[in-house]
């Protein structure tokens, strides 16, 4: 018998009836699927967060070389020229003492006390500096040592750099560790979900033994016999997927402002809203895949044709 639309409706209907009959088992099956999918989605979300964090930190990395106060503008521009010739360097900016002071004043414009202190000091307390960016994060360390050993090193007071680089490498280490852990947990939970679903379908098959025997006897086609069980498995996956979306999205909107206050460039709510379609497909697709794989295995093992 060809899978016509009417036959398909019947197969889906029987699958739905099986599903309803099993409601308690179904509850547990869907529960474990929800857990699996949540961890999986969490992993995806975490990946996005850690990647954005690292990117925004890398953006910020630069070397600030503070020049001694006695260095003239001419000497400074010579250093700039020399640095600009280095291939590793993507950007050099000279900030003179006057510019630094302007910047400082602007930043503390509202603070009477600071302005007062500056006036009382009389002279410019700030140093001129060079802001340097490298093409790649890995090149900063060698750049710093190059500057420290160069013939203009005696003009430089101190170099600011190390802090960001250690933060980045720490985040990278943590995030790759968490990612491996997350993948492992997702895999283990997927396996458990498949086993639990498999068992539920197996029990449905046993409870339908009589019907199955008669279906075979009267020549029901194989997909008429097997189809409802696969539909049942897919239904578990669809419901689990919907539940996960219903849990995940409010959570994102709740957490998003807090995350954004740490990392301003990361707008999780906006990000996941934009990708709602893709997330929906990913979650439902994974759910259906889990359910269908489990039921196909159960049907292959326990349903004689």
């Amino acid at each position: 018998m060809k899978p016509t639309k009417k036959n398909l409706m019947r197969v889906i209907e029987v699958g739905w009836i099986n599903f309803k009959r099993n409601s308690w088992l179904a509850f547990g099956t869907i529960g474990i699927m929800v857990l699996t999918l949540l961890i999986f989605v969490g992993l995806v979300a975490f990946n996005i967060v850690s990647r954005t964090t690292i990117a925004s930190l890398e953006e910020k990395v630069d070397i600030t070389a503070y020049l001694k106060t006695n260095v003239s503008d001419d000497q400074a521009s010579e250093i700039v020229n020399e640095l600009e010739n280095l291939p590793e360097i993507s950007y050099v900016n000279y900030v003179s003492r006057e510019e630094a002071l302007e910047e400082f004043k602007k930043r503390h414009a509202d603070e009477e006390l600071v302005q007062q202190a500056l006036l009382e000091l009389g002279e410019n307390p700030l140093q001129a500096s060079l802001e340097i960016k490298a093409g790649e994060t890995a090149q900063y360390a060698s750049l710093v040592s190059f500057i420290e050993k160069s013939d203009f090193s005696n003009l430089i007071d101190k170099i600011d750099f190390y802090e960001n680089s250690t933060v980045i490498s720490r985040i990278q280490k943590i995030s790759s560790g968490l990612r491996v852990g997350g993948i492992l947990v997702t895999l283990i939970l997927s396996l458990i979900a498949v086993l639990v679903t498999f068992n539920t379908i197996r029990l449905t098959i046993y409870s339908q033994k009589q019907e199955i025997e008669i279906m075979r006897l009267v020549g029901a086609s194989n997909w008429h016999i097997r189809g409802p069980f696969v539909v049942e498995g897919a239904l578990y996956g669809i419901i689990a997927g919907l539940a996960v979306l219903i849990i995940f999205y409010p959570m994102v909107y709740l957490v998003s402002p807090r995350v954004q206050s740490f990392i301003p460039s990361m707008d999780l709510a906006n990000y996941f809203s934009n990708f709602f379609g893709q997330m929906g497909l990913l979650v439902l697709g994974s759910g259906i895949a889990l359910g269908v794989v489990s039921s196909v295995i159960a049907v292959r093992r326990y349903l004689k044709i």
Partner: protein
Amino acid sequence: MITFEKVIKEYNGGQKSYRALDDINLEIKDGEFVSIIGPSGAGKSTLLKMLIREEVPSGGQITVDNINVPELTDSEVPYLRRKIGTIFQDFKLLTNKTSFENVAFALEVVGADEEQIKTDVPKVLRIVGMDEKFENFPHQLSGGERQRIAIARALIHRPKILLADEPTGNLDLLNTFDVIKLLMKINEFGTTVVLASHDREVVNAVGQRVITMDKGKVVKDQEQGKYTI
């Protein structure tokens, strides 16, 4: 036509295998009513199971209407089973369905439409004499009536062959002969009937070809036979 050629069946029960059928050679022509008799364990049920590919032979050839049964793929088997109706000692009715629904079920699961179910089911229930009890559940029917419903279900695909494995084993004398008469009527309409039984009365009542089996072998094949031990 049904043919068996050098058919062997070995069941693997634990370590040792058991030969349930041993070199069976048979030919059953269209429209025949064949009774297979023999003591318990002779291999009668095994023989019938081969025809609907419930079991596959360990050796030899089986054909039904020139279809090579052991060679069928899984997806072809349902079409074979629609050509062959089957009834059993224990009726195999669904307890939560009415007479009508039990027969309709056989149509539903092959994708028949409402229209066909509405016309065919009452027709076949009338043939088996059950047109009064459409709404009864199996527990509201006598054994003989249940077997009639099972026969109606077996007939719903208009099979060319009807297999009956000990169909009267659970019935009293009166019901037994009712069912046998019904099988004979179905045979008169042109359906090949293969009946397995170890009841001498039943086989004598049919009074047609009798194949006697013992220990997996055909020991006697008589036209118009009488059952002898």
